[in-house]
């Protein structure tokens, strides 16, 4: 899909099936979700779904209008248009030998990541950052061999 990446923060009522209704709407209307995450807010009755999607303004307008029609959707904020802080967490398991271990740990430190597990053949790193930073780190450790990669997808909050 053409257009730029948008991060939508969707505040929803916490009912069973709400996530499926939101996710289903994207599928049904032919929009792609780049990433999605969901968790309760301070108020147990509501959850925040953070979705990142790619699309031009017209598509974004349709997505927002259609989402607003869902009864359990309370509010949608397009965080791309506003000043916001965006982060995702990722775990990356990299092949390592005794020789390469230190190099990888050094790089992790530069990226302000954490080494969370070390074995004979691999090293697991926890890294939080915006997508760009996380992508840069992946590129950096690729030559060592990435065994597994897990990303949470973006979560974001408006700057006050």
């Amino acid at each position: 899909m053409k257009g730029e990446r948008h991060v939508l923060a969707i505040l929803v009522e916490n009912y069973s099936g709400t996530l499926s209704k939101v996710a289903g709407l994207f599928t049904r209307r032919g929009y792609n979700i780049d990433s999605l995450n969901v968790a309760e807010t301070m108020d147990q009755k509501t959850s925040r779904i953070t979705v990142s999607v790619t699309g031009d303004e017209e598509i974004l307008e349709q997505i927002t209008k259609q989402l607003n029609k869902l009864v359990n959707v309370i509010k949608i904020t397009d965080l791309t248009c506003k000043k916001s802080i965006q982060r995702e967490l990722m775990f990356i398991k990299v092949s390592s030998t005794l020789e390469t271990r230190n190099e990888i740990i050094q790089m992790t430190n530069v990226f302000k990541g954490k080494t969370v597990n070390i074995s004979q053949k691999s090293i697991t790193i926890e890294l939080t950052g915006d997508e760009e930073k996380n992508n840069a780190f992946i590129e950096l450790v690729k030559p060592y061999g990435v065994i597994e990669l897990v990303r949470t997808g973006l979560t974001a909050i408006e700057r006050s």
Partner: protein
Amino acid sequence: MKKKVSEHLIKFLELENIDTVFGYPGAATMPLYEALRNSDINHILVRNEQSAGHMASGYARAKDTVGVCIVTSGPGATNLITGIATAYMDSIPLVIITGQVDSKSIGTDMFQEADIVGSTEPFTKHNFLVKKAEDLPKFVKEAFYLANTGRKGPVLIDLPVDIQKELIDLDYPETVDIRGYKPTYEGNIRQIKKAVKLINSSKSPLVCIGGGIASSNSRDELEEFIEKTKIPVACSLMGVDSFDNSSKYFAGLLGSHGYPYVNRALNKADLLVVIGARLADRTTSRYSFNENQSIIHIDIDPAEIGKTIKTHIPIVGDAKNVLESLNTYDFNPDWENWSDKIFQERQDYFKKALNLNININKTNPCLVVKEISDLLKDKSILTADVGQNQIWATHFYNASKSRKFFTSGGLGTMGYSLPAAIGSKIANPGSTVVAMTGEGGIQMLIGELAVLREHNLDLKVVVFNNASLGMVREMQEKIYGDECHFSTAIKFNPDFMKLTEAYDIRGVQITNNEEIKAKIKEAFSKKGPCIIECKVDPNFPTLPTKIKKLEKNINISA
């Protein structure tokens, strides 16, 4: 006082003033049916759950209320999906109650288990799975509120059978407040002022109406608006009964089955005022957006504005409110030539269609519709099925009031007309109700003839029998060539007159134009159900291009 949840639910329906429900019982609705047995609510037993949706739809449309259906879990619920989807596409308010297997067994693939909440997500305005009996009052209250406010639509409540049996004390809430649902009813006044200015600076405006006029009951306000502005009115299938078809400002049906002059007007107009229409492909199939045209779009659903066509002045609001405020302004129309020309072209086309006789041993269906329309005038409701019969009915039936013409406009569900007519008749016993269908459409849900007879409803069913799935056949011939129809010429049809005997219903057969007047009079002279079978030539067209083509080859009898 402690009562069973099923009894509470039926009580809640009574509190919502529901006097009739349409349904089919099953294992997962046993407690509900026991509660129904002990209530004053009238239950209409359908013969296929799909019809429960259509009957409730006809009922809701005729009575301006919410239609209610109750079906069992599994196949009962899945059979109903087509009915729900049909109502969803046309924004018809329904509350659907489905029985579900024991709440503790959900997800174990029990006998007659189906995830109906998951399956109907795309076809409902909202749906609920009741997991705790305590939630039921809120869900029911919200379901009725959601179904019949804003852009209306079907709402489903899935109720597990073990919860139906729970003994509990429940109160029905008096008010409803849903955080994420606040429809906009009043149009923005600045936008309305801009619209007035744009209308007054226009040279050739066209009003396009859809189901929103009937849904908001604003036919009178529209009439006043047109009297003031003198703008010609074109409509979608959903807007046919929202403007007087004999008015000199009525342009007619738009889109794939509209006559060329209407679609020409749609393309040539310098301003389109779209009211309560979503401009779907069937309406705009012969339209291409042009830069010189401005568009004002009035709709209660903001998501419809700008969805298919770029809009210059969007007005989100209820058509009735917006038209009322538009009517407070002055308009200076100077497009008489424009509207007169459209009216003249309309007359020409209609004359052609009414005089089109391609086989003197068969009937012209347009004449049949016109005859019925003239005979019944303002006392009737007509439901049209889907296919050629729908187009003939749309062109030649003049609905005198709003909520008098029902068809499946959006989903195009064959079989809709008979159950919808039954629902309309039950809602409105004083009206003469006519279902207009084809021999293909009626066979989709033919079992409902039993309902017709069981309740001895004064309802006439017109079956245009051309031994063809005519609409598709016509398209096949148009796209692939004259001889290239496949699977649309029906090799066997039941003898409809014998069928009327089997159902103990009166039958009348019209074989040629000469008989139309007398046979129709005969059919309508007696109360009670009657099937009127009209023999139609399979080549009798709906597409204007085909009419034109035939004109050249066949002598049109005046």
